[in-house]
C-alpha cells in the first residue's frame, strides 16, 4: 500500500500538463505486489484513462482525479466595464478542470469503445457513467449549449442492470431468508413437535413466515429500522398539516401548537 502510494504521488504532484502518466504507472505496476488487481483494472480501462487504476488501488483518492490533464480556462476574456453599483459576473483566470474522457464523445458514451470480444461490455459503461457522476458531484460543472449532455441510462439493457445489481442482492436476501427459515422451522419443531408441513397449515406459523419474509426484504441494514419509522411519519405528515384547520383546539388559546 505505502509503496504504491509513494509511487503514485509523483504523477499527481507533477505539473498538470503531463498528459500521459502511463509509463510511470507501468513502472509502479511491476514493483508492487498488487500485480493481479491492478492489471485487471488496467485491462478494463482504456489508454487515456489512468485514474481508474489509481482509484481502485485507493492510493490517491484525495486529489481530484485528472483523466486528461488539460486545463481549460473557463472565462473568455470578458472585460465589461463594471458599473458602480452592479456586480460583474465574469470570473477571471480561475482554472477549472472539466470532465474529460476519451470515451465520452459529444455528450454521451461512445459505445463502440466499450466493446469486448465484439459485444458491448455494459458493465464498464455502467462503471464509466458512475465515475462521471461522482466526478460531477465533487466538481459541479456548468452546462453549456455547445456540449449538451445527452446520455440516457436506458440505453443500457435491462438484463445488464439485473445481472449487476439485482441478482447479487436477490441472492443475498434469499440466502438470509433460507437460513432464517431453516432454523425457525427446526426451532419450532423441536419445541412443539409440529413438523414443517403441519407448520405451514397453522395460521400463526404462516404469520411468522410473512413477518420473516417482510423483515428480510425491508430491513437490510441496521439503519433501515429507523428509516422505515421515519418514512411512515413522513407520508402522513402533509395530510395532517392540511387537516389541522379542521381540528378545533380544545381551548381557545391564541397560541396553537404548530404541527411541524
Amino acid at each position, binding site marked *: 500500500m505505502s509503496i504504491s502510494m509513494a509511487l503514485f504521488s509523483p504523477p499527481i504532484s507533477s505539473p498538470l500538463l503531463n498528459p500521459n502518466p502511463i509509463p510511470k504507472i507501468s513502472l509502479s505496476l511491476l514493483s508492487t505486489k498488487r500485480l493481479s488487481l491492478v492489471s485487471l483494472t488496467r485491462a478494463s480501462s482504456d489508454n487515456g484513462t489512468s485514474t481508474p487504476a489509481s482509484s481502485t488501488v485507493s492510493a490517491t483518492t484525495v486529489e481530484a482525479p485528472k483523466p486528461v490533464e488539460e486545463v481549460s480556462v473557463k472565462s473568455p476574456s470578458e472585460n465589461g466595464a463594471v458599473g458602480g453599483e452592479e456586480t460583474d459576473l465574469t470570473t477571471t483566470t480561475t482554472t477549472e478542470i472539466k470532465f474529460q474522457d476519451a470515451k465520452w464523445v459529444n455528450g454521451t458514451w461512445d459505445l463502440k469503445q466499450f466493446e469486448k470480444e465484439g459485444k458491448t461490455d455494459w458493465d464498464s459503461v455502467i462503471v464509466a457513467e458512475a465515475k*462521471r457522476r*461522482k466526478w460531477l*458531484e465533487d466538481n*459541479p460543472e456548468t*452546462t453549456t449549449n455547445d456540449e449538451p*449532455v445527452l446520455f*440516457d*441510462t436506458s440505453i443500457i439493457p435491462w438484463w445488464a442492470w439485473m445481472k449487476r445489481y439485482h441478482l447479487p442482492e436477490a441472492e443475498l436476501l434469499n440466502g438470509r431468508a433460507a437460513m432464517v427459515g431453516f432454523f425457525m422451522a427446526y426451532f419450532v419443531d423441536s419445541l412443539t413437535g409440529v413438523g414443517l408441513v403441519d407448520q405451514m397449515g397453522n395460521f400463526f406459523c404462516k404469520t411468522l413466515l410473512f413477518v420473516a419474509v417482510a423483515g428480510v426484504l425491508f430491513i437490510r441494514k441496521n439503519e433501515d429500522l429507523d428509516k422505515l419509522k421515519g418514512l411512515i411519519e413522513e407520508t402522513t405528515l402533509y395530510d395532517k398539516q392540511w387537516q389541522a*384547520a379542521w381540528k378545533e383546539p380544545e381551548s381557545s388559546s391564541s397560541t*396553537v401548537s404548530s404541527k411541524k
Partner: protein
Amino acid sequence: MATFTLKSFTGLRQSSPDQTSFISHVPSSLSLPQRRTPLRVSAARSSPNLANRKLRVAVIGGGPAGGAAAETLAQGGIETILIERKMDNCKPCGGAIPLCMVGEFNLPLDIIDRRVTKMKMISPSNIAVDIGRTLKEHEYIGMVRREVLDQYLRERAEKSGATVINGLFLKMDLPENWDTPYVLHYTEYDGKTGATGQKKTMEVDAVIGADGANSRVAKSIGAGDYDYAIAFQERIRIPDDKMTYYEDLAEMYVGDDVSPDFYGWVFPKCDHVAVGTGTVTHKGDIKKFQLATRNRAKDKILGGKIIRVEAHPIPEHPRPRRLSKRVALVGDAAGYVTKCSGEGIYFAAKSGRMCAEAIVEGSQNGKKMIDESDLRKYLEKWDKTYLPTYRVLDVLQKVFYRSNPAREAFVEMCSDEYVQKMTFDSYLYKKVAPGNPLEDLKLAVNTIGSVFRANALRREIEKLNV
C-alpha cells in the same frame, strides 16, 4: 311582508324564538323566504339584516390574493377596504402564472412579459432534457412582473368600488360578541405626514388576511406557524446574444449542490433573467447554493451583471388554523404554496376570490352579518378542489427531490412525452387530469426502472468511494 319588518329590527339578538312564534301565526298562504328550525341560533341565516349599512370587510395586503378578494367583495356589494403597505412593492418572485389564470381573472395580455413555452430540466450530472414539445400553439407559462400584476389587480378592485389605503397593518382587537366589530390598528401613509405615517383605527365586520408569508393577521388570530423555505434570487442582466437563448425558455437545475430539497432556476423576465434557488432544511447555506446555481448556468449567463438580490420566505404547508371567527387567511398567509414547484400566485388569487365569494354569499351581498360557518364553506370548497393537486405535488417532491439518484430519475422521466403532457396539462389548467391507464402503467414501469437505475449508479459511486 310582515316577516321582513321583523328581521330589520336590529335590537333583537336572538331573533329565531320570536320569529318562530310569529311563524306559527302566519297563514299558510304566506311563503316564507327561509325555513328556520326553532332551536338553532348561531347560523348566519338567522342573523338580522345590518341596519342602514352594508357589511364592511377589510382585506389586509394588496398582492394577488388581496386584489382578487377585494375585487370580488366590491363586486358583490360589500363595503371593501384594501390596506397595502407598499404600493410599488416588487415582491421577489419567480413570476410564473399558469394559462388558466389569464382566462379566469381576465388578465390583459400586455401584463405578461414573456410566454415560456420551453423548459429545460438539468440533472445533477448535467443531463439536460427539453420539455415543452407537447404544448399546443396557444399554451404557455406566463412570466409577469409582480409589481405590474399586483398593481393591475388593485386598480381593478378600486374600479369595482373598493377603497385602497396605503397603510401598514399593526394589530387588531378581537371582538367579544358575534356582531361587534374588529378594530384594526394601522399606520396610514398619505404622503403629507411623511415617512412615519399616521396611526389610525378602523372598525370592520370581517377581515381577510392576505398579507403574505409573515402575516400579521395570522399572528393576531393565533393561526400557528408553518415550515417555510427561503427562496433566494439574483436578477442578472445578460448580454443580448445570451438573452435570445432564454427568449421563451426557463431552466430548472436539480442537484445536491444546487439545493438539498428544492431546485435552482433561471427564469427569463422582461429584459433580464432571474437566477435563484431555495431550501427548507439548510437555510444557512443558501449563499452556497446560489453560487452553485450560478456555476451551473455559468456559460449561459457569463458576462452578466447582477442588478438586484432578493430573498423571501415561501410557506411549505398551510397554517394549522386558517380562519378564526370572522377572520380568514388566504394566499401565502394561509400557506397555499404547492410543493415541488413552489407555485403560489395562482393559488393566492384563487383563494382570495373563493373566500370573498363565500363572504358575499354568506352575507347575501352585504345585507347580513356573517360568521365562521360562512368562512368554513370557503375552506371546504378550497380543500375539496385543490387538495388532490397539493397531495400529488407533495408526493412528487418526497419521491424525486430526496437525493441525487432520485433527481436523475426525475429528469430521465421528464423526457417521456406522456409525462410532459400530463405535467403541463395539470399545471396549466390546474386539474389533476385522469390519464390513459395503459400509459399510466407504462409510466409506472418506467419510473421504477429509472429509479432503480439511478440508485444502482449511486451504489456504484459508493463503491468507487471506498
